[in-house]
């Protein structure tokens, strides 16, 4: 079994499913590339090369490059899903969801309910999320809190290659519509690479992964944030503070039990979340715990989120925008040692410079 990147894992998942089932197709802008051009077909294979090679194997009937018409092609994917195919629709950047949202919001996600349980809409939307690439305000967002709030839609935010492959295969085989959010900083992040079997396998939805285990604090984190949280937990472990780092993997369905049980042990909760400073995924988890596990709580719940601003371009600002390992560690010190915010952050920074 080889160490593979998330990029590779996602490509493998698509290929495996397309081989298994002729109804699986891929739709999106430049998912092959080169259509209507004089040069090579499959010139892109998706803007990040993830679907490279698929058109060679499966042909242009199943690997469908579209004009730049998000609402049109997303709706086409939804209609295809409701009539017997199992499409993967790629929305290049999740930031573009405002150009096609109705087809997911009012159509795909609601068919089954509105139609009295008779529709089956096995659509998978693959889309890129995340800040950190200097891609600025319209190419760096992570609106999975919006996707999570939509009944009828499932939402996946993988953090490592093994999960990414298994969750994507599950998404494609799943009979409900799913949005699969790929953090652009994870594709080639060594930390996110993992041993990935060449064969097919699924990772079930709604089952959290315990990335680290500890007694003192529960940290819930998704996607890229998992690695920040795990890094902070490792540092804190050296200081004798134990963190349960929980990666829910899917935000909807959500493994509420794993989170509640962990908080029952630790009595403390921190949520690290890139989605939003208001009405975000972090707030959802905080509310879950404050309503269902209140009696176990020994300290305020801490949210480590971006500020309530668009994603800035300039690198120092963008780095300050993204939740950091330091902010996670400081939050842990606040809730375990009762430090105030400033003292906690000073302590973390001091430890960091001592280590360096």
């Amino acid at each position: 079994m080889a160490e593979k990147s998330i990029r590779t894992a996602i490509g493998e998942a698509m290929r495996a499913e397309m081989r298994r089932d002729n109804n699986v197709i891929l739709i999106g802008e430049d998912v092959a590339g080169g259509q209507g051009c004089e040069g090579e077909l499959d010139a892109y294979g998706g803007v990040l090369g993830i679907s490279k090679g698929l058109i060679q194997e499966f042909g242009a009937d199943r690997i469908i490059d579209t004009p730049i018409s998000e609402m049109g092609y997303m709706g086409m994917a939804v209609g295809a899903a409701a009539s017997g195919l199992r499409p993967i629709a790629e929305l290049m950047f999740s930031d573009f969801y405002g150009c096609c949202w109705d087809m997911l919001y009012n159509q795909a996600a609601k068919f089954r309910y509105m139609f009295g349980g008779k529709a089956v809409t096995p659509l998978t939307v693959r889309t890129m999320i995340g800040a950190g690439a200097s891609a600025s305000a319209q190419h760096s967002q992570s609106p999975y809190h919006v996707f999570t709030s939509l009944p009828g839609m499932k939402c996946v935010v993988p953090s490592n290659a093994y999960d990414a492959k298994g969750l994507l295969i599950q998404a494609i085989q799943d009979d409900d519509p799913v949005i699969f959010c790929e953090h652009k900083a994870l594709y080639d992040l060594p930390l996110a690479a993992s041993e990935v079997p060449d064969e097919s396998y699924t990772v079930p939805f709604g089952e959290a992964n315990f990335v680290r285990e500890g007694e003192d604090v529960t940290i819930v984190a998704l996607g890229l944030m998992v690695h920040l949280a795990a890094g902070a937990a490792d540092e804190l472990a050296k200081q004798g503070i134990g963190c349960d780092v929980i990666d829910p993997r899917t935000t909807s369905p959500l493994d509420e039990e794993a989170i509640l049980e962990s908080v029952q042990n630790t009595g403390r909760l921190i949520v690290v979340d890139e989605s939003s400073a208001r009405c975000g995924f972090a707030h959802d988890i905080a509310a879950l715990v404050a309503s269902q596990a209140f009696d176990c709580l020994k300290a305020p719940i801490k949210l480590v989120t971006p500020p309530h601003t668009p994603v800035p371009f300039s690198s120092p600002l963008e780095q300050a925008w993204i939740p950091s390992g330091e902010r996670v560690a400081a939050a842990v010190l606040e809730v375990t040692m009762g430090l105030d915010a400033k003292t906690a952050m000073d302590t973390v920074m001091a430890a960091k410079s001592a280590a360096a």
Partner: protein
Amino acid sequence: MSLTKEQLLDYYRKMRNIREFEETIHRENTTGEIPGFLHLYCGEEANAVGVCAHLSDDDYIASNHRGHGHCVAKGSDPRLMVMELYGRAEGLCGGKGGSMHIADLDRGSLGANGIVGAGAPLATGAALTQKVKGRDNVSVCFFGDGASNEGYVFEAMNLAVILKLPVIFYCENNGVGEGTGVDYAVGADSIADRAAAFGMPAKKIDGTDFFSVYDAMEEVVAHCRAGNGPYFVEAETVRFYGHFEGDPQKYRLKEEIDNAKLHRDCLKKFRSRVIEEGLATTEEFDSIDSDLVAAYKGYVAEAKQAAWPRPEALTEDVYITY
């Protein structure tokens, strides 16, 4: 006329079925027992029936907010549709959809739709399914003159052309979208002209005349089944009632409506032509009418007594697995 008597009476029965459906709802709605928004199809029946005459259960349609007629024409059970309008458990969608969301996947109906123009991409998707599966089935999107200004309708048209998909964009131009006239809302001289500019053949037909619709669609559906790509049809038609039930329709002149009912009623036109050509009798038509009147009386009576959905239905069927 190439149609047999049986066919003729059958198509008449379908149109009359829709008319009776809508007239019944129009009447019953005044009692306040039918909840929600209602958009009636009266006057436009020739379109739904003339189109669906050429479709099987394996062909798909995507309808719009004014969907009762399309659903009946595509073969959905009107009794269950009436149940649905009353929000009852036995309704076609278990009472959870209502007028604007009547769908019937088994009959190839992707449903009415509350989002204007949304059916265009959806029907294009159903056509993609046909193409990928290598079948000769087609899909039809019914949409209005108002919907013809939604950007995603154009996107769907362009997609259908470049992917050569068997989808028919059937525009029911009744001259008005809510209270805005087509002459104001559409910058081009004609909606059908737009199709040509997306590289798609188009026809403009009389949507108040069943035979005009039927004949045009025979050719159009054959074109699509043969793998020649999409087709656009603009049908000029009329809406007898308001945009929604309760609409005072101040934007229209009373004479306009009266005139439409008198001279452009697709049912009257059908009857008189068929009778004139001696292919069926007034009595035969009348007996169809009275059968339907009786049937709908029954549907309504039954629906009013029918059981509500179980409380647990509230949280069922959001997902298949969760």
